[in-house]
């Protein structure tokens, strides 16, 4: 599944730009946006295989962005990331349509694996 294209949405530019560069070494071509509005613009301009959204975003929140993306691009798999402790905690309810929650700091191998799983799960769900 090489040549994967991902859109990362996170307001911490230093974090997200490094992640883009790092993903490149793992065979994932990624672009990034630092807020929800920019992310929606980028989704209009180019096609992506997966979107990675931070829970906490300035302006439009991560959850709001997820809702819009779900409606506009129902086939696009979504993964959420969060800096607020363990993302797998039940206290944070996973919004509908989000494949998984990953905690920061990100384990790159896990992220790539989750991206691939999310795409695969989506293909099975919508043949």
């Amino acid at each position, binding site marked *: 599944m090489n040549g994967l294209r991902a859109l990362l949405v996170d307001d*911490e530019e*230093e*974090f997200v730009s*490094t*992640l883009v*560069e*790092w993903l490149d*070494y*793992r065979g994932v071509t990624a672009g990034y946006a630092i807020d929800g509005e920019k992310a929606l613009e980028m989704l209009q301009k180019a096609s992506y295989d997966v979107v990675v959204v931070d829970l906490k975003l300035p302006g439009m929140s991560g959850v709001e962005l997820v809702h819009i993306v779900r409606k506009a691009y129902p086939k696009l798999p979504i993964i959420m990331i969060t*800096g*607020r*402790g*363990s993302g797998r*905690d*039940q*206290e944070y309810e996973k919004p509908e349509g989000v494949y998984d929650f990953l*905690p*920061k*700091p*990100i384990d*790159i191998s896990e992220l790539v694996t989750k991206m691939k799983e999310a795409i695969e799960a989506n293909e099975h769900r919508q043949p």
Partner: protein
Amino acid sequence: MSTKPGELQTDAFIVNDCGILQTVSTFYGTVLDSIDLTIPPHIRNREIISEQDQLNGGTMTTGFTYVEGSPFILVAVSRHQAAFKHWFYQRADVIWFLVASIAGILLVGSMRSRHIVNRLRESDIRRARIHHNLEYTNKMVTLGRLAAGVAHEINNALAIINEKAGLVRDIATHTEDFPRRDKILGIVDSITTSVDRCSRVTRRLLGFGRRMDAQKERVDLASLVNDVLEFQKTEAIYRRIQIDIDVAPDTQSIESDRGQLQQVFLNLISNAYAAVEDGGRIDITISQPNSNEVAVTISDDGAGIPENDLKSIFEPFFSTKGEAGTGLGLSITRDLVEKLGGLIEVTSEVGKGTRFTVNLPVDKVG
């Protein structure tokens, strides 16, 4: 004969031994009258003086002497009228009434005031307890939020460090003839290990802070107690305190308030730390005595609590730590446990140690 009160009246006469007057008597009549005085028997050769109280309150002294060689007895009587007896009686009655009334008023007054003071004291203690409880909870919530805020900021910075290090590792790995690759990879590993260590701490802090607000959820007591212990791990290591935690297999998770349970066990475990000497021992067991409740015991091998203190240990403002304690820790702990539908008990033996047992319902009450 008229007499004035307080006046002395006297009379002397002769009677025969049958009590018949032989001479005229002022008190008892004329010759041959019978007198109503009891003639004491066997008075021959003796003088007898008798004194008796009269009905009117005075005293009457009577002397009898036998006239030798005859059946006659010389009787002398003196009567002393009680002058102010009547007034004395009345005054005594008034004084008695006054004393009784004052005593009554004092008794009722003191009982009443003691009752009021007790009520006031109780309400003061209750108010202070609620106030402290509230303050304590607020403090914990504030502390939790503060910790969560700090942890979140640190976490974001850690994420960047982690990525930069990861990127360096990938660059070093994938670039051909990368100079001193092994050295660089070693350094990167060391950085990511430290990042992992930091992020474990921040996650724990975040979890702690966030859970202060939570109300009702399924709680695994073993992992909750372990979380609390993690926070005090350093003290245990420095003081060489041995902590053993024994969880009975198949212990259910309970439906409860995580934040409040954390406070309960933080208090009890902190107390156990304070009780044990360096190199001491704390044993924690978690078990399920029946299908409805889970029991947690925290035992220390500290100095123990004397029986007298043990009764007051859950009372507000009772402290054995002197200035160091507010005396509210265990009172708040008991309040919290009871609020969660549980029960807390303590047993202790001086010189051997103390054991707290907390029983909590599997399903939250209320």
